């Protein structure tokens, strides 16, 4: 994070120098007016001198504006490049972080960091730094000039500053990192309430009366309103008074009143007061920008902290002594795994998958079946014991080699918002149209795709809305095309919203047929699919309690046989 910022420093430094020069040049017209006033009062102004003054003022102004434009361009482009670099780096970093850590962070927070927080840095880099430079240089230059003109009146004009800062301190304190975080949380709650409200809309319509309908939503927005009002209302008066204290009209009136006294006492001449009247009101804007700049700095600090949290996610480091898998053999030796270090999810699993065989894992929900599957893809970790894939220790297989070697069909299919084609070729972008179609046909989804107006080019989620079962079949086509040496198939339960089970089952059967010769670990909820496996293991509370073939397990009359009977209503007769 800091290293990324460092890359922008040179540009920022240049911009700040440009801006400082610009701030000084921009005072030229005011100075010119002062000179002009003196010339006019002298009675007989010299035309050449007057025009030279105006010319110089114009030149100063032109140069100042040009430099400012340049400074803004430099910072904006530096910010633009930095934002892209940061975002790409963040995406890359996420891609190497353990999934569990990512899940803990949540997609909402990740989005906030990658987009919103990088945007908050924009205010710092593109605006706040040069604004602060501009304001500081302008304020210092004007006060310096005024002190040279008349120290007494200049001192009077300094008076509003401490008062202003005193009042504004409360405003600044209120935008401290802690308060901003509370605000972010409150806003997040509104966000969440909207999401829940919309998700529950149909339920609200059917069950909620008009009164109760969106009570939770209303409570959330009322809660936010209360938080916001309590937070901001006390700041309102100090902020308003503070802004009035340094308003141009205040500074001008102060100058006029104090100046009149000084002039009438003979302590100052009237013409000097004209200079003050020209310059003093010009202090208002930069002083105001000094504090808003400070506020931006604070906001940016909060954003940086959140970005740092993203970059602090641990990284999966490439193995020091990489081993490459060869062949489809998979072995688990005394594998233990627990999410929290106390309650075992897998409790001493010994399992060998011979190359080219189908092993089905069955058992009640919560037995650890899906965890077992995900462990093989290193989605969970760390585990105890030893897992080898193609003879290589899972811990020492480089990520790209692992994912080339192992395929996976998940219960939760994620179709990306991309064309159907891109979704199917996710693992093999170079597949030919014929290969894609063959995979889709085997997954019994080709006809459905062709019924779409744009066929394989239809964008999922936009032109093509697939039901859960259809999405599952696309995921199967994706896996078929990927065709690695070993497969883990987590068979979808029907709760994948409204899956047409018969169709999915057919597609799964096709996948199994097509994958003959590959090693397959099938997490089966539907025992009909498992029945054809070379090996069936029954998992219960993280342990394998039965293993064998369909026939041997039925004959054994244990847990598997009981589950089979429950699903089929009657004792098995013939297959």
């Amino acid at each position, binding site marked *: 994070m800091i290293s990324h910022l460092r890359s922008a420093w040179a540009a920022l430094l240049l911009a700040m120098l440009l801006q400082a020069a610009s701030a000084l040049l*921009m005072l030229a*017209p*005011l100075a010119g007016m002062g000179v*002009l*006033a003196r010339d*006019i009062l002298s*009675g007989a102004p010299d035309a050449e001198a*007057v*025009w030279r003054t105006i010319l110089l*003022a114009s030149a100063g102004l032109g140069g100042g504006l040009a430099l400012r*434009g340049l400074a803004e*361009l430099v910072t*904006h482009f530096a910010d*633009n490049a930095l*934002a892209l670099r940061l975002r*790409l780096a963040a*995406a*890359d970093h*996420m891609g190497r972080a353990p999934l569990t850590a*990512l899940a803990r962070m949540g997609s909402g927070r990740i989005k906030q960091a990658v987009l919103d927080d990088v945007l908050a840095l924009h205010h710092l880099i593109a605006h706040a730094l040069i604004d602060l430079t501009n304001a500081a240089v302008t304020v210092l230059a004007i006060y310096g000039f005024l002190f040279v003109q008349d120290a007494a009146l200049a001192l009077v004009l300094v008076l509003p500053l401490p008062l202003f800062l005193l009042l504004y301190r409360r405003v600044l304190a209120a935008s401290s990192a802690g308060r901003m975080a509370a605000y972010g949380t409150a806003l997040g709650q*509104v*966000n969440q309430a*909207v*999401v829940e409200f*919309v*998700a*529950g*809309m*149909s339920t609200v*319509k*059917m*069950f909620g009366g*008009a009164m109760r309908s969106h009570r939770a939503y209303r409570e959330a*927005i009322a809660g936010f309103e209360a938080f916001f009002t309590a937070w901001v209302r006390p700041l309102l008066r100090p902020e308003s008074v503070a802004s009035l204290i340094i*308003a141009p*009209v205040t500074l001008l*009136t102060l100058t*006029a009143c104090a*100046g*009149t006294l000084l*002039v*009438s006492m003979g302590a100052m001449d009237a013409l000097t*007061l*004209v200079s003050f009247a020209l310059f003093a*009101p010009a202090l208002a804007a930069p002083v105001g920008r000094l504090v808003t700049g400070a506020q931006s700095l604070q906001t940016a600090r909060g954003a940086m902290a959140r970005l740092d949290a993203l970059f602090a996610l641990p990284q999966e480091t490439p193995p020091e002594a990489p081993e490459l898998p060869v062949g489809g053999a998979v072995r688990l030796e005394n594998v233990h795994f627990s999410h929290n270090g106390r309650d075992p999810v897998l409790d001493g699993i010994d399992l060998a998958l011979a190359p080219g065989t189908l092993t089905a894992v069955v058992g009640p929900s919560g037995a650890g079946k899906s965890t077992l599957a995900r462990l093989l*893809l290193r*989605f969970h970790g760390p585990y105890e014991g030893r897992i080898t894939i193609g003879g290589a220790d899972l811990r020492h297989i480089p*990520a790209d080699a692992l994912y080339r070697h192992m395929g996976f069909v998940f219960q939760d299919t*994620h179709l*990306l*918002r*991309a064309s159907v084609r891109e979704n199917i070729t*996710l*693992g093999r972008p170079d597949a030919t149209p014929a290969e894609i179609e063959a995979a889709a046909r085997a997954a019994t989804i080709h006809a459905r795709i062709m019924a779409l107006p744009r066929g394989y080019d239809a964008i999922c*989620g936009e032109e093509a809305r697939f039901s859960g*079962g259809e999405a599952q079949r696309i995921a199967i086509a994706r896996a078929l095309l990927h065709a690695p040496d070993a497969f883990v198939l987590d068979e979808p339960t029907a*709760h994948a*919203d*409204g899956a047409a089970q*018969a169709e999915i089952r057919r597609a799964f059967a096709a996948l199994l047929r097509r994958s003959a010769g590959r090693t397959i670990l099938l997490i089966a909820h539907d025992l009909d699919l498992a029945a054809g496996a070379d090996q069936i293991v029954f998992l219960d509370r993280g342990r394998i309690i039965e293993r064998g073939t369909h026939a041997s397990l039925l004959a054994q009359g244990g847990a598997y046989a009981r589950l089979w009977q429950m699903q089929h209503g009657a004792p098995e007769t013939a297959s």
Partner: protein
Amino acid sequence: MILARLSRLMAAQDARRIPAFLTAAAVAGVLQGLALALVVPVLDALLTGAHTRAILWCAAMLAATLASWAASHAAALAGFELALAVLRNVRRQIGDHLAALPLGWFTPLHTARLSVTISQGVMQLLALPAHQLLPLVRAAVVPPVLVLAIALFDIRLALAAAATFPLLALVYWWGGRLGQAADRAVHHAAEEAGQRVMEYAQAQSVLRAFGVTQRGHAALKDALTDLAHASRRQIWMVLPPLVANSWLVQLGFLGLMALTALMVLGGSAGDAPVLIALLVLVNRVLEPLGDVAAASAGIRMASGELAHVEGILAEPPLPAPSRPAALPARHDIRFEAVRFAYAPGTPVLDDLDVTLAENTTTALVGASGAGKSTVLHLLARFCDVSAGAVRIGGTDVRDLDPAALAGLIAPVFQTTHLFSGTIRDNVLMARPEADAAALAHVARLARLDEMLARLPGGWACEVGEGGHGLSGGERQRVCIARALLKDAPILLLDEPTSALDAENRQALTRLLATLRGRRTIVVVAHQFEWMSAADRVLVLEGGRLVEDGAPAALLARGGRYAALHRAAHGG
């Protein structure tokens, strides 16, 4: 204009605050202009040595300044109250409107935008009344007041100052237009990037398993690069008008300076002291306009959010009958030549014409995408038919009061949602006055009792956000209990047991059998136990009714239903 738009987002009594705010802001502007203008007589008096007169003018200037403070402060407070009024009202108004929209409106993209608009968007919108209106009013009032004051002393200088206004307005308008176009492009790119980042985060497991994170997710990279490009275009669009604006303000200032010089050199200037004093005033004329230009980006963004909110509120709701029909006495269901499509050209239901007798159980069968769920959604009026009519007891559902219609129907939908809260809260939602005995009864029927005994806290167990603290099967049982507690004459079930294990599924199939003949039941099911428990099976295909009859008859006929049956039972 912006004020009229804002006032529509407030309750009537709050909208009445707007004139008071405007008055305070305008008075503040006039007083400020007056105070600034008074510097001319002060300086004039001092330059001509009339010190007593200068002190008197100073007193007047001080009085005007203090009065302008009071008015400004009042205006700032009023502006904040306006902002609070908007905050109070706008989210509620959006919420009420959302509840009246057809469910088809809630696509993922709409929903994603919605939550951003309601949370951050509304806050940006608040800046308009809270911070931006006051400078706008000041910019509209102070310069004319100052020009009038200058005119009192020198009409030429006043005219010259006034001449810069239209030019500045033009540049401001030009900048606004360029900025809006660029903003839209950036906004669009940011939305796209936001969706991609979410997708990237949520689909990590799939992306990794297929090696995409190793290669780099091209869609995300493209979206982020597009965003950077759009932002860069925005720089080119926004910076030049901004710079041009400062140029013009300063150029106007220089022009006035040159004019003064011309007047002095030409000897046509009146009083030299007055002229010098006027220089100070000339210096202040354009300043409020410059302030507005500097704040233009914020104003533009707030107006953009205002447009977003207005867009949501302008979405047409499902029409409610002006004079609702009486509640139907019977509860038979008639689909009368019903057509339905989310988008023209892709019909979801195509000429469905069927009557379901009162207190019968009908099973809807068909492949995914055949339109089964849509049939239930039209009945519950989540959307309206494109053509034809849906009638309950002869009454068009569109003629019924929405609450009355909801009262007739107890649904268990796939999208049925549990709200954060306890199991009891969620079940009681159907009938808040239900007593413990009624709760216990539905718990037994929905097989909730086993779950209640197991889960910590039983009825008081928190279900978590969206019910995700429970397993899919547990969620379904809560939904079933809730629907049973509602005790409505029509029961709609959309794959109500898909996530249940075999044992619970069997129990609930028995439950359906006990309800048979006592309710009008429509059930979408893949499980054949459910189909065979129905009086009648409708087979849908591509939105059309292709088979209709008693399950046994259809099985005997050997058509699609029989084929599905074979496929499911070891094909």
